[in-house]
């Protein structure tokens, strides 16, 4: 099948690539653009390991076509840190041991950032509901929730300082 030209903003930079219409955004990110931070778990929208931001909205990139990204803005886990400085969520996941094998972690961090960007002080219940679209086989979730709470607190304090 003929490939289609796609141009988009990816983590703040313009990128161009060719995609077959049947390739998912996840495949384009990983296989064409070689950004392998975004993971594939289920491939059908249930596990959240492929979460990215598309025009500022959290989506599962396994259920988005690469060609749909034409003219759009995409942020992946690779775009979360400020250069060498980890985002407070990334740091909190390490400090709170909120990962074991780590395959779910990029999705959780992108999803949690989407929440904290709009709600700086979510309740524990809100965090758990928001992250219900993300599955983790290893941690039992509690440490993930604690890490998100700690990062939220740190971001609030940074803002006040």
């Amino acid at each position: 099948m003929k490939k289609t030209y796609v141009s988009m903003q990816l983590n703040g930079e313009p990128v161009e690539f060719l995609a077959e219409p049947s390739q998912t955004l996840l495949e384009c990110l990983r296989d064409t653009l070689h950004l392998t931070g975004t993971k594939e778990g289920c491939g059908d929208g249930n596990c959240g390991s492929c979460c990215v931001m598309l025009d500022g909205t959290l989506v599962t990139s396994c259920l988005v076509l690469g060609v749909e990204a034409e003219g759009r803005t995409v942020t992946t886990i690779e775009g979360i840190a400020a250069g060498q400085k980890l985002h407070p969520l990334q740091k909190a996941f390490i400090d709170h041991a909120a990962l074991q094998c780590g395959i779910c972690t990029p999705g959780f961090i992108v999803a949690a950032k989407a929440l904290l960007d709009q709600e700086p002080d979510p309740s524990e219940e809100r965090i758990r509901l928001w992250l219900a679209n993300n599955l983790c086989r290893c941690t039992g979730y509690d440490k993930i929730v604690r890490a998100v709470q700690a990062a939220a607190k740190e971001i609030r304090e940074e803002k006040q300082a």
Partner: protein
Amino acid sequence: MKPFDYVAPTTLDEAVHALAGNPAARVLAGGTDLLAQMKGGRREAPLVVDVKRIPDLLSIRMEEGGLRLGAAVPCIRIATNADVRAQYPALAEVASLIGGTAIQGRASIGGNLCNAAPSADAVPLLIVLSAVARVAGPGGIREIAVEDFCVAPGKNALGEGEFLVDLFLPKPAAGFKAHYLRFIPRNEMDIAVVGVGVSATVTDGQITTARLALASVAPTPLFVREVTEALVGKAPSAEAIAGAAALAEAAAKPISDMRAPAEYRRHLCGVLSRRALTAVLQ
């Protein structure tokens, strides 16, 4: 996924042209049903027509007589829209019930309706809100009442080359309330074992409108017209509610599957109908 062609028209006319003469083409809204089905090999399409670049399908507009909801608006925008939350709170709630956050970033109410699953959570609510679907196609524009939209599992009333443009939800009268309740074994991210949508208007202590529709207990979302007849003209009371819930239970035609046996589903119809009716009538 099997290879296919992709187009993203920017006007209704372009979309009508793209679909014309291509009966196997599929419309793409949020893709949370369609792409999952195509990836799983349960659906094939030589052409995918992405309707998310057509402004009409992406707008939420308050009009004189009600709300016009673009067919492809993702649930997250519906759930956070101030007008929807103020005037159609049950719709905002159902939008935040479909899937999880990342699914809601893509899933549309129009897609939920067009996919025509018996378990679609938004459809019973659309029925009790008396929503009307506006459809475009080679013959122009026509309207379909939402209760007539789903005709069989996975089959809708759209003719060849037709697609859903938007849904019109009449403005709620004073004293109108609507509510959707579903039973799932977990708190989130599951398919309804049974869903019940209800609406009613109470004026001067008398029920003046009442509608009830069920999910997951028939081949299509089921509008239980008998409930309207049983309740209108009565005063809200526990007996009236019990009578209506019994009608809902009797109307259900559930099957047994891995989610629940038929008797359990029928029982749930009665319980959820009673609870949902109590919520809107008392």
